């Protein structure tokens, strides 16, 4: 992908804090986005300004990301964008783009079905989905992991969670791929519109025949004494779809690549499946892949650095989760760490609402995959291709066993 053009450096940004980094092209360049982001600790100031993508600050340290995410009055989730072209299209995704106190009200509605008590009820269904997907590859001697496993699993899990018609899942996967894999925003739009149209029809169907599913729960919910509008419910459904899709896909894919490159860890987890939950946390730390935008709400100072109103700050969760100031030898995947402090799910009030579900999907994936698939490695002709931006990803992952 070609590098974006450079914006002028604003007057309030000192030259010593400028480092040229395109969060799209540069993240993807080597096929290992986490390595690129970790390397920022060596190459750039902790908190630096890049002229790419309209000009943005980039935060790379765990303590700084905690500060930024913990101060929504200063660093807002509204009016954020990754590059200026996104300003042209207003897509509302409450409550992701809201700040407290409004954020909290909508967030509590999501928690009605994303809370641990609810998510735990999905375990059997998720395991059945995982089993079915593994069935499709177990007799072969390899697979393209994303198409076979890591794209379908979260799509089907989402459809199960929302009480959708799973027989339409291939269509959903097509929309998901269209939205996530397209390089340019105009390529993503047709899929987004199709998904949105489907969600609308789902909401209408639930209005007519309410049940106990999340859409029905949202339709029956109130905020500040008022029922949610159909439009608000639709927007939240869009967020749920987008929130739990490529994120889980990428977590599974990056984790599987790490395991493919480390037969010793595969062996250890096969022999000690009770260590899988701890392994999931350490993997998430090491392969964190999201970059989170915030908009500065007023002229202020951050660590002695002048920020102006409407400055954009992107927090690299990969760099922050692999910060040698908070974790020893962050590049090492070590299941014996007493704690794996990370921000793979972000932190602050916008900490991922789907984290419990994601952790469940990842644990079940590792349990079933390691149980049934023989020791696996990267296919001989595998060459890593990655994507940068808000959610960093691999394009494909060919495995052999």
């Amino acid at each position, binding site marked *: 992908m070609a590098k974006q053009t450079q914006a002028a450096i604003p007057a309030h940004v000192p030259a010593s804090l400028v480092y040229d980094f395109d969060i799209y092209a540069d993240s993807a360049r080597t096929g290992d986005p986490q390595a690129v982001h970790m390397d920022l600790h060596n190459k750039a100031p902790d908190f630096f300004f890049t002229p790419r993508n309209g000009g943005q600050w980039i935060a790379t340290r765990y303590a700084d990301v*905690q500060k930024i*995410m*913990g101060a929504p009055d200063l660093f807002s989730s509204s009016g954020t964008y990754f590059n200026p072209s996104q300003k042209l299209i207003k897509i509302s995704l409450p409550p992701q783009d809201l700040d407290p106190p409004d954020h*909290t009200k909508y*967030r*509590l509605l999501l*928690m*009605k079905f994303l*809370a*641990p*008590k*609810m998510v*735990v009820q999905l375990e059997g269904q998720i395991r059945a989905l995982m089993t079915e997907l593994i069935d499709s590859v177990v007799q072969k001697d390899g697979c393209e992991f994303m198409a076979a496993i890591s794209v379908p699993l979260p799509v089907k899990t989402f459809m199960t969670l929302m009480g959708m018609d799973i027989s339409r899942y291939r269509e959903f996967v097509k929309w998901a791929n269209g939205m996530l894999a397209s390089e340019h925003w105009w390529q993503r739009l047709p899929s987004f519109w199709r998904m949105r149209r489907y969600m609308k029809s789902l909401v209408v169907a639930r209005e007519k025949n309410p049940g106990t599913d999340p859409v029905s729960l949202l339709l029956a919910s109130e905020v500040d004494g008022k029922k949610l509008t159909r439009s608000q419910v639709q927007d939240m459904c869009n967020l749920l779809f987008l929130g739990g899709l490529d994120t889980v896909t990428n977590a599974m894919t990056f984790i599987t690549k790490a395991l493919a490159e480390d037969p010793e860890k595969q062996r250890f987890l096969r022999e000690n499946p009770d260590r899988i939950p701890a392994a999931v946390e350490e993997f998430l730390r090491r392969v964190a892949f999201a970059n989170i935008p915030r908009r500065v709400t007023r002229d202020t100072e951050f660590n002695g650095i002048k920020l102006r109103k409407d400055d954009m700050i992107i927090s690299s969760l990969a760099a922050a989760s692999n910060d040698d100031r908070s974790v020893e030898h962050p590049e090492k995947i070590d299941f014996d760490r*007493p*704690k794996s402090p990370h921000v793979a*799910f972000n*932190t*602050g*009030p*916008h*900490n991922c*609402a789907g*984290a419990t579900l994601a952790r469940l999907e990842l644990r079940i994936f590792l349990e079933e995959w390691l149980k049934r698939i023989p020791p696996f490695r990267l296919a001989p002709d595998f060459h890593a291709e990655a994507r940068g931006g808000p959610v960093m990803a691999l394009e494909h992952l060919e495995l052999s066993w």
Partner: protein
Amino acid sequence: MVEVTFVLPNGQSRTVAAAAGQSVMQVAVDENIVGIQGDCGGNMSCGTCHVYVDEAWAAQLPAPGEVESAVLDGLIGQRANSRLSCQIKLSAALSGLKVTVAGS
């Protein structure tokens, strides 16, 4: 200094001395108490700081607000004395506080 005792899921106890004004969650994270994560940094957006407050102390704490109550209702293993430890602010009056890590 405020003394706080954490009872771990395995039954072991750890007593730590903490500064007044901190939340119990923050103390637990600083002291690497297993089972208390504090993923959301004390914003009632994760539930990973779930504790059971010892009955001797439960009544001394201000009651949970609406948001905390809603989050507690969604946790596995919720009990009458469940609290989010990020919402328990330590003061001298709470020295000797004992909580059990819910680990869920």
